[in-house]
């Protein structure tokens, strides 16, 4: 537990001075607050910006942050120093991943706080965000582990981030895109956020979410086994 706390502490200190990661954490929550207060369009669905940006947020922030943090630690040899100090790979992943997850959940709290939600919907919103952030975190960690450098991680994570974040938005305007987008977890979570409840989730959605989760864990296991964390 002490090792996980030390990694968590390191991440807090580092993020405050790491603009790349800090922007990822803050950009969409701030945009949500600003847009919710600045834009009032007639017939606009309630919480439109919150739901639009929250899906982009869960597809972008945890993915890019985890890929960037893990690959940077590998590239600069700080991860090796941690391991030599007795930190186990699982402890590192729990510390760094736990920090990113908590940071993104804090951003989600800001987003939902400035929306117009009932208590029950707030919990549902946070549950959806928690799940989505976890999926993206796993995909981002896979990229971080597989990449030899931070630059390589960015070039891998950006295209995936674009797909995960923007496809649900584009699906609103184009039926063909929607068909494709239906296979990714961010689209399913977008549907749930914009009006669904747990009871309303179709079996198809459950299957797609489970499939995405399985894919994330399988990829993680495969890449971790092949590359290790060093």
């Amino acid at each position: 537990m002490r090792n996980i706390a030390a990694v968590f502490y390191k991440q807090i200190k580092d993020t405050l001075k790491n603009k790349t990661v800090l922007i990822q954490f803050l950009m969409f929550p701030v945009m949500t607050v600003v847009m919710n207060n600045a834009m009032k369009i007639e017939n606009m669905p309630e919480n439109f910006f919150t739901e639009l940006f929250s899906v982009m947020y869960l597809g972008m922030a945890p993915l890019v942050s985890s890929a960037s943090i893990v690959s940077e630690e590998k590239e600069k040899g700080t991860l090796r120093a941690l391991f030599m100090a007795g930190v186990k790979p699982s402890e590192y992943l729990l510390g760094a991943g736990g920090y990113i997850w908590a940071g993104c959940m804090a951003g989600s709290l800001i987003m939902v706080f400035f929306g117009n939600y009932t208590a029950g919907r707030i919990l549902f919103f946070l549950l959806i965000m928690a799940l989505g952030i976890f999926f993206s975190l796993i995909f981002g960690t896979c990229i971080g582990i597989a990449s030899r450098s931070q630059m390589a991680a960015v070039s891998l994570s950006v295209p995936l981030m674009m797909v995960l974040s923007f496809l649900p938005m584009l699906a609103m305007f184009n039926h063909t895109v929607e068909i494709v987008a239906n296979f990714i977890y961010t689209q399913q979570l977008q549907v749930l956020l914009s009006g669904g409840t747990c009871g309303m989730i179709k079996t198809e959605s459950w299957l797609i979410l489970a499939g995405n989760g399985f894919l994330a864990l399988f990829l993680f296991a495969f890449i971790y086994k092949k590359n290790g964390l060093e």
Partner: protein
Amino acid sequence: MISAEHIKKTFGDREVLRDISFRIPRGEIFGLLGPSGAGKTTLIKILTGQLAATSGQASILDTRAEKLTMSQRREIGIMMDEFGLYGRLSCYDNLKVFALLYGIDRREIRKTLAAVGLSGSEKAPVEKLSKGMKNRLRLARAFLTNPRILFLDEPTAGLDPATAEEIHALLLERKRLGATVFLTTHNMTEAEKLCDRIALLDKGHILESGSPQEVCRRYNRLKQILVHLSDERDISFPAVPASAPEISALLAEGTVETIHSSEPNLESVFMELTGSKLNG
């Protein structure tokens, strides 16, 4: 305290270390000298359990290197270039991360920073530090647990003489406090000054070992008599009786300005053994 028994390491078909054996007792500074690519860093990695040997055995504190427990790891400080620092964090925070890992009192951080001469730079972000200061911080990280054993991979590489001198003083202070130090270097002056014993490594093989003076004495045949003449010519003679008549003749001519002997040093011994320079 540290022992290597018949260590061999291969990467594919390439043999990086061949039959490396030595024993380092408590309180000794042991220097591994060799040019770049000789296998020094690979050996440190094997000795500290970061890399498995192909065959043979490395032990620290009577335990196989790959089986060191967490409490034994705390007894070992490692400084390697490959062990990065957190560039955006301050010197203090860099050490605090490791103090949290080791469960060390925060006051130790300030004490350790002061010991390496970084007390004025506690809050400075590491990415703004000079190379010498970064090396000191790496040393501070290695010193943090007050370890009994230190592994230092080229601790003064690329540093100016004054900073290197300060690091030498720090290492001698650690030795005085009872620490055992294993260091790699390709700087023979550093080795002669710091090390109780050295081993010359080339192409993964130990060519010579012993105290720097012993190793040089073994190659006393390389001793030269250097004569500087009044017409600015320098002539060197092997330090053997057969050179005496020629030197006497020069003295008789009255053209000798200075005359002195040149003892073999580690550089010349290495040159004799391998035909190449130690830092080449």
